[in-house]
């Protein structure tokens, strides 16, 4: 016995294993899965009793309705429109409340610091710079996110969202993407970083990457206020009062649709060029309908969102506030650093129909897009801190009469805020989800490139026609 063991060297064992491997053939994995299912079936047959129950019938009836060729799409649009309306309308008041509270606190703190005789620049840096930007981001972002995401989660719990993906898949199939991208896009309306995280539900790597890279083409809650303001001041003003609000809403919808169009186009382009050789397979589970546990969703998502927004405000918005304050308050040769930089950026800004101040605001607002407009206003008014104006009339006077904004400026600003690099949090999330420097870079720079191109083209075309 013992000398048989001795004659068997490791090489022999490996060679034997190789030989056996070759006899096994390529299909042994299939066999394993088959036997697993066979066993499971066997157990289920003994342990589970089926009865023909009405629940099935109801599920199928609902399915037939929500995926029906006639009612499916309108129903879906109705539900999505309702969610947006509730979010925008419902977030207004709490946003204002939060802002009032937080800025009241700032004023008190500044008074206190002044009473203690703290130098003005310490007070300015801490309260007008860091704290103000933090408060701004928090009050703008928290209410819409705290309303939007629970509603979305309820729909998901209900089982409706997979049916939306099912209905829209044909559109995404044509552009080489996955139907679930419709859902990650819808999440992107709430927050692009959340949309990027939501792509985890897409199980084929290629389609998931497409969804990650194009998520930024839907405007998030942080960019919506900018779009709404511009639409109200500029687009609505070009129409008679009776149609004004309709025109403003139409402009915002047009921008959103443009974003969807760009998503599809870029997905199509990506899937035919740089993402050609990645695995792809489409499968989508349509789970049975369930009653969502509303209270649990409300509780967890309120806690989650508050923590997320607070974390983001502290990590990214506060440093941005510090930079803004420093740029606006350190002067060289009588003009602030911010003004110097804006002058430097002015030619590029003008070439794409904007100006240096707007471009600078976009650079500063990389961490958080919510502060683009406050930064622009700060620069125009020379206040040295971010600011918001009461009432659209005053705003209009400042932008149009003093700084020469035209309809082209407004339209290009809307375009550029739709098509530019994702915010810092989203870039960070792309990096965390892909773990690839290359894809993070593509995700950040591709939308920016497209933005420059599109705005440059519109500006050039408008100038060429001599319209402005």
């Amino acid at each position, binding site marked *: 016995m013992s000398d048989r063991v001795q004659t068997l060297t490791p090489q022999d064992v490996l060679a034997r294993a*190789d030989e056996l491997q070759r006899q096994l053939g390529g299909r042994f*994995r299939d066999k394993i899965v*088959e036997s697993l299912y066979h066993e499971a079936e066997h157990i289920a047959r003994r342990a589970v009793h089926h009865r023909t129950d009405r629940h099935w019938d109801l599920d199928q009836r609902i399915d037939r309705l929500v*995926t029906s060729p006639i009612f499916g799409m309108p129903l879906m649009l109705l539900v999505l429109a309702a969610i947006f309306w509730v979010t925008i309308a419902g977030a207004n008041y709490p946003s204002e409340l939060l802002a009032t509270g937080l800025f009241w606190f700032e004023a008190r703190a500044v008074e206190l610091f002044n009473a203690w005789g703290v130098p003005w620049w310490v007070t300015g840096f801490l309260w007008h710079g860091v704290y103000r930007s933090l408060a701004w981001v928090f009050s703008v972002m928290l209410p819409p996110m705290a309303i939007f995401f629970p509603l979305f989660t309820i729909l998901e719990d209900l089982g409706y969202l997979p049916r939306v993906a099912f209905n829209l898949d*044909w559109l995404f199939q044509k552009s080489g993407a996955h139907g679930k991208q419709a859902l990650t896009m819808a999440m992107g309306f709430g927050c692009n970083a959340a949309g990027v995280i939501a792509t985890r539900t897409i199980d084929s790597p290629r389609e998931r990457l497409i969804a990650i890279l194009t998520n930024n083409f839907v405007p998030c809650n942080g960019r919506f206020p900018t779009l709404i303001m511009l639409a109200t001041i500029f687009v609505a003003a070009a129409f008679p009062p009776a149609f004004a609000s309709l025109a403003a809403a139409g402009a915002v919808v047009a921008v959103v649709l443009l974003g969807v169009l760009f998503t599809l186009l870029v997905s199509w382009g990506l899937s035919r060029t740089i993402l050609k*050789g990645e*695995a792809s397979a*489409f*499968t*989508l589970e349509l789970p049975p309908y369930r009653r969502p546990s509303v209270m649990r969703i409300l509780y967890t998502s309120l806690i989650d969102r508050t923590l997320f927004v607070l974390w983001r405000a502290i990590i990214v918005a506060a440093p941005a506030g510090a930079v803004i304050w420093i740029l606006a308050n350190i002067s060289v040769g009588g003009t602030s650093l911010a003004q110097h930089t804006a002058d430097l950026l002015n030619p590029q800004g003008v070439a794409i129909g904007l100006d240096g101040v707007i471009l600078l605001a976009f650079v500063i607002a990389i961490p958080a897009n919510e502060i683009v407009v406050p930064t622009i206003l700060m620069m125009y008014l020379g206040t040295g801190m971010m600011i918001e104006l009461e009432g659209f009339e005053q705003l209009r006077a400042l932008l149009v009469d003093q700084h020469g904004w035209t309809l082209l400026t407004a339209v290009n600003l809307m375009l550029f805020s739709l098509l530019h690099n994702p915010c810092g949090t989203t870039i960070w999330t792309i990096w965390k989800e892909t773990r690839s420097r290359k894809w993070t870079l593509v995700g950040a720079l591709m939308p920016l490139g497209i933005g420059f191109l599109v705005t440059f083209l519109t500006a050039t075309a408008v100038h060429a026609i001599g319209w402005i």
Partner: protein
Amino acid sequence: MENGWIWLWFVLALGGLLALRLWARLRPLARWRRWRALRERALFEDALKHLLTCEHSSRDATVESLAGSLGLSQKRLPRLIARMEAAGLLRSHGAALHLSSEGKQWALRVVRAHRLWERYLADEAGLPIGELHHAAERAEHRLTPEELDALDAHLGHPLRDPHGDPIPTAAGAVAPLEALPLTDWPLDQPAQIVHVEDEPEVIFKEIVAERLHPGMSVRILERMPEYLTIYDGQAEHRLTPVVAANIHVAKAPEGPSQPEERIRLADLADGEEAEVVALDPDCRGFSRRRLLDLGLTPGARVRVELSPAFGEPRAIRVRGTLIALRREQAVHVCVRSGSRSGGKTQKPGVSRQ
């Protein structure tokens, strides 16, 4: 003006610091050296591959044939050969070049890398068969032996590459190919394509254009001096003898893979019920695993339940759950239409036991 100077110095210092950081981060010199080493390795390995090919076709490799294959100048080639001889990879007998046993071992490793990578690209990345070769030509020089073994294990130790060529084992063993060229196959005998030759490229492109690939079952319908007509269950193909000689076939395996008997899940009408027979052998890697995971194993009963406005995807009930599949997935599932209960007329939801 003084302010201007301060600014200039500040910007210069900042730029210098940034350049230093970049240099330290990117290490351009080390990168360049690595690139050189890789190029040298690629040259060695391409030479070894050429010698191995010559050995297989039992002709002598010469300096001229090597120069032609590598596209190297007459000046650089002798140096390369001298270096390879010094490394003990080849021996020269007069004009003829021969692989040493070490050289052969290395050459087989390169072939293994090439074919494994092709298998990987075809199965996991879904790259079309026509684009595999070029991608693998680049990747074969970059894979380390450890990466190769990991790749081999990950793919489940495949035996053949997507063209049907045998993949050498880590020990360098090559399973022989037992097949006949299509030109020598008897008329009307069911056959399975086991190998398509990927060189010369012109002929391979013709094979790709006809959508013929290993794993397909075919039959020769007609043999003429100028052409050959074959049938694959769906369509007829007319091939010139040159093309047909580059396709190798063997006896078709027994079972449900007879082309005529296959109905696909994608062919079922709305509400129709069927039983899964098998998954198409062409469906491999990632997409095959997905379909299996969803429970589309032989014997499972399936039913088409929902089709949206634009016809795709369709929702299919399998094992009590509803899943949506696009047409491109559903064609991979072969079914036997066992309408035990007559499709549409049946009340939904009652047929499940």
